[in-house]
């Protein structure tokens, strides 16, 4: 008897569950990053932010569009940073009718899936971070694409500004030490130009990814007697380069356009000057900005770890914002499926979250950022730049 009751009850529950699910509309968000392999670092950061934002939104009961409540479903694909794997994973997402794809950060992955994306232009939106997306945006039939990062040399791009800033400090010669990979090469070419424009001489040395001992290239670069060393491009190597450069005194004035100030703080007694572009200086912002404070606390709670004040949360926070921006755009567009409308709304919006966002006409992000000076001993001088307030759309 009780058995019968229980089964009946169970069935009821099941039915309820099913009907509940069917009543609950879901918007799928795909994310295509290298979560394993040599470049896992670059997939790990954004995937963290997205996961956090999505669970927050869903826990808050989803979001309303056109009087209907939607929840988000995040599908994270691992490309292992390989074109072959990426192609398959990306096609899976499209077959799964995913209309919003975050990523990729890796340019080789982007190059591999770009043709497929172009074929499906209009069916979905891709919010890519990679610099490779910049060139693609300029070309026709790029309605599927939005670049969520700001182009170093673009209007309100931080690159130009940073180099000017360096010029103002009287730098005449800069030595660049970059990994010999896709992004490294891109930045190298980019900043080579920017320095030349400002009449700053620059010498470059590249290293094979995976290198840990930089004494040789550092010594080589030091012999050029540069005013600043520009090492790159992520904390993964910065901690080692900065340590080895400052410890041996081969370079104590550093100029960073990607990466955090973590390395500077770890070597604060050795450095003379460490100029870094960071989208957000969390240590300061969390004291003044409640949104940032909340993010930091949520992050600790969500991942049950200390908040790492380095590059990880920088990227995480941006992706965290992107999710909210997308939702915001859906609301204003009044649709969750008409990607054209949503793209328009997204590009039109000026978003004030952890970062301040705005898009230029091509669909490339322009956002607020900080220029941080870390001096010997670790005292920090901060300049906030907010192109979203200045640059006209």
């Amino acid at each position, binding site marked *: 008897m009780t058995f019968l009751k229980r089964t009946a009850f169970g069935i009821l529950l099941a039915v309820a569950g099913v009907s509940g699910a069917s009543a609950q509309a879901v918007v799928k968000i795909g994310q295509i990053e290298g979560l394993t392999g040599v470049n896992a670092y670059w997939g790990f950061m954004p995937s963290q932010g997205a996961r956090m934002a999505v669970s927050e939104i869903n826990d808050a009961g989803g979001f309303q569009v056109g009087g209907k409540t939607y929840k988000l479903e995040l599908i994270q694909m691992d490309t292992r940073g390989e074109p072959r794997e990426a192609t398959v994973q990306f096609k899976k997402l499209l077959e799964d009718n995913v209309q919003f794809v975050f990523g990729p950060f890796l340019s080789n992955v982007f190059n591999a899936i770009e043709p497929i994306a172009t074929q499906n232009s209009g069916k979905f939106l891709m919010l890519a971070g990679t610099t490779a997306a910049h060139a693609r945006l300029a070309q026709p039939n790029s309605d599927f694409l939005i670049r969520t990062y700001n182009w170093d040399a673009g209007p309100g791009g931080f690159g130009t500004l940073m180099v000017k800033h360096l010029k103002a400090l009287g730098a005449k010669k800069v030595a660049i030490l970059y990994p010999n990979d896709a992004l490294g090469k891109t930045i190298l070419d980019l900043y080579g130009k920017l320095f030349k424009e400002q009449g700053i001489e620059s010498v470059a040395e590249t290293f094979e990814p*995976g290198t*840990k001992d930089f004494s*040789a290239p550092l010594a*080589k670069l030091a012999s050029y007697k540069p005013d600043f060393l520009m090492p790159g491009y992520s904390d993964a190597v910065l901690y080692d380069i900065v340590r080895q450069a400052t410890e041996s005194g081969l370079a104590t004035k550093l100029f960073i356009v990607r990466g955090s100030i973590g390395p500077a703080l770890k070597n604060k007694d050795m450095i003379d000057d460490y100029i870094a572009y960071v989208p957000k200086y969390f240590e300061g912002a969390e004291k003044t900005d409640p949104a940032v404070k909340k993010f930091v606390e949520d992050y600790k709670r969500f991942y049950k770890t200390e908040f790492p004040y380095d590059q990880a949360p920088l990227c995480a926070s941006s992706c965290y914002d992107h999710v909210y921006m997308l939702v915001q755009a859906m609301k204003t567009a009044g649709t969750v499926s008409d990607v054209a409308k949503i793209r328009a709304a997204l590009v039109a919006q000026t978003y004030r979250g952890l970062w301040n966002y705005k898009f230029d006409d091509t669909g490339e992000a322009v956002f607020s950022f900080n220029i941080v000076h870390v001096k010997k001993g670790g005292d920090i001088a901060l300049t906030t730049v907010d192109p979203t307030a200045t640059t006209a759309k």
Partner: protein
Amino acid sequence: MIQVVVTQMLNGAIVGALYGIVALGVTLTFCITGVVNFALGAFMVLGAYFTWWCHEVAGIPYIPSVFLAVLAVSVLGYLADAGLFRFTRNHLVNGLLVSIGLISIVEASVLLIWTATPKNLSYVLPGVIRVAGISVSQIKLVISAALVAVVAATYVGLTRTWFGRSAFAYAQNPEAAMLMGVNTARLETMVFVYSTSLAALGGGLYASLYSIEPSLGGFYILKGVEAAILAGVGEVLGSLAGGVILGISENVGSIYLPSALRDAYGLVFLILILLLKPAGLFGGKK
């Protein structure tokens, strides 16, 4: 310029000493078990992460941390041998494959537990020593000294003790050794475990020099194998020398030539040696 070169030779030698310790592990396992144990890379990663964990998370001082890490990894090494490599003795390719499997398992597990963000040990013994315009960081000196000591100890152990001699005898001629009453199964296991602990030690010391990430193992095992071959398989002191030569050729090479090709300089050297002296630089016997 001369200072630069000398400094780089020193740095190269120190970096090479790290290759050397892995190479020693490679050489020993290859001689005794007939398997090129690429999994040593995985054990090195574990050694590095365990050391980091003990030091940063558990707050144990550095040197004990290294010992703990080595201990833990040796246990894992024993399990790996008993569970896996015991079945691939003298089967080079299958051993290689099992190693590859093990590497991917370890790498992914580390990712899972400690994420992809590189970990940094708080500095042990920072600062540099400057002599006549040549500057070398103290920790590097200490660590290379430690590595040299370990290799020397291993050499003494292998030449002066009964166990060591029986190991050599076994490497030369298994049957004879068996007749000498050498417990070959135990010998193989001991050598395997010892080489994993060497790798772990390498990892533990590495952690105090550089930031660590899950993929470092693959890079170092290749260097280790190169160094071992360069020296000649079976050469104990040679493996260290091989590593040092590799390190120096890379560092000095990258002064005069683009450092992006750094890895190539060691390889070219390796090929030349193998073609001109197939037994390796120090390899006497065929």
